[in-house]
């Protein structure tokens, strides 16, 4: 690439002031990658749960003494639910699925088919025409003593709000890391301007435009930024993969949205060109602004 292999008039390779820039950038990009991945994970989690749970009710029927009782209770509850206004779909979860749901809490014991399991009915509701919950619960209790209705929407909205604020904090941290990176580049570039003062003056006196000088600083800064970003992103990717494996291994995989989505990975990888661009632009602006004050 001609742009990148271009020779420079400024002796950057003799310049100690930028030696730590790639490492600092690597650290910043590492933080930014993890934050970004976190934000994406939270956002995925929030939207999954938002969609999946806020439009459902769960009705729990206590386990009966035998299968016949269970069937009768389920039939009675379903009949009441289907009749209720605002209810769109009623699904009785098969025992196998109930067992899977309980596995994280009960462990292997959940597999024992002798264990009496409660019955769970998923109820999809139309949020605009919410059924009168109190009445519905009352009706169900009368038909099946001990029946319980969980309205996920109620506690989900609180939970979702917490998720969204965590997300916002993540975005804020991400932006702050970006600002800190830009600040580091500004200081490094200023130091470079000081180091190369004499060469810059000679370039000026031979008729170099500020743009010409700034371009050399900008390309240099971009290369250092890219190098740092590559280091930061690859370390972050290793951490994220390790984390994913760990989560999988611990069996938390059933929680929805914990795996990083493709979008999150793409965003993390896009930090590479973004860092390059930030480094290029920051250095360029810094040099142009400083040189504008020189004669």
């Amino acid at each position: 690439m001609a742009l990148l292999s271009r020779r420079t008039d400024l002796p950057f390779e003799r310049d100690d002031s930028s030696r730590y820039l790639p490492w600092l950038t690597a650290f910043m990009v590492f933080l930014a990658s993890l934050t970004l991945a976190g934000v994406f994970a939270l956002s995925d989690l929030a939207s999954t749960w938002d969609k999946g749970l806020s439009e459902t009710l769960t009705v729990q029927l206590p386990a009966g003494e035998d299968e016949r009782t269970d069937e009768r209770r389920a039939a009675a509850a379903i009949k009441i639910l289907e009749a209720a206004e605002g209810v769109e779909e009623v699904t009785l979860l098969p025992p196998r699925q109930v067992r899977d749901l309980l596995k994280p809490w009960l462990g292997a014991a959940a597999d024992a088919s002798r264990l009496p399991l409660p019955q769970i009915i998923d109820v999809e509701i139309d949020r605009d025409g919410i059924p009168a919950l109190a009445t519905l619960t009352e009706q169900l209790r009368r038909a099946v003593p001990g029946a319980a209705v969980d309205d996920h929407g109620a506690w989900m909205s609180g939970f979702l709000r917490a998720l969204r604020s965590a997300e916002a904090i993540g975005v804020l941290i991400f932006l702050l890391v970006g600002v800190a990176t830009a600040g580091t580049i500004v200081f490094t570039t200023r130091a470079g301007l000081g180091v190369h003062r004499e060469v810059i003056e000679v370039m000026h006196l031979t008729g170099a435009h500020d743009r010409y000088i700034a371009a050399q600083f900008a390309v240099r800064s971009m290369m250092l930024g890219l190098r740092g970003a590559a280091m930061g992103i690859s370390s972050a990717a290793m951490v994220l993969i390790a984390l994913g494996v760990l989560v999988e291994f611990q069996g938390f995989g059933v929680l929805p949205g914990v795996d990083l989505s493709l979008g999150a990975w793409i965003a993390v990888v896009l930090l590479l060109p973004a860092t390059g661009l930030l480094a290029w632009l920051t250095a360029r602006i810094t040099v142009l602004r400083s040189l504008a004050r020189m004669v």
Partner: protein
Amino acid sequence: MDEIVRFQTVGLRYGMGPEVLQDLSFTLTPGSFHFLTGESGAGKSSLMRLMYLAKKPTRGSVSLFGRDIASLRHDDYPTLRRRIGVVFQEFRLLSHQTAFDNVALPLRVSGMREKEIKKHVEELLTWVGLEENMAAWPETLSGGQQQRVAIARAVIAQPRLLLADEPTGNVDDRIAARLLHLFEELNRLGTTVVIATHNKSLISSSLHPIMHLDGGRLSIEDRESEPAATVETLPRLGRL
């Protein structure tokens, strides 16, 4: 444009120090050739700095190529500086670049293509007798060789105004004569030349007028005829 450089009652001081140049008024017309003399510390380099836009006068006005430099915008400087070639007294070669790259600098900053640059630079370096030293680092060159690199850099872009500060201080008379010949060659092609020098034999080898600095004041001696026309209109300077 009938004047390359025009000074009107120019004064210059460094910081809070005394005026090192006082009431300088003169005009350099296109194609003129002047020697600039004066004792060490007389202000020759300072006068050069004003002419190559490294300093602004502390009073009076300086015009270059018909433009008052007080009215220049930041972006105008490169355009004017590209018309001016400078041989600095202390060379100011870029130590991290080869002789070739040093000479190529003015062409590169003005955006010339590398292929053409190569042709021009090699030709000129050969002319000043440095064909063997193109890839050499400045610090490995002798004082005289460095000086010739500096001169080559000053003239490579065929400037309209050439300012050379002690360009023959480190070379023997034979090379000095050759360099003077180079300057005269450029001058014949239309370049206005000012050479600051202590070199008596260089000065006496030709009849170019002499600008003399003494006590911060300037006088001009025209050796071909009576005092130069520009001086007549500026009575303050008629000191010779």
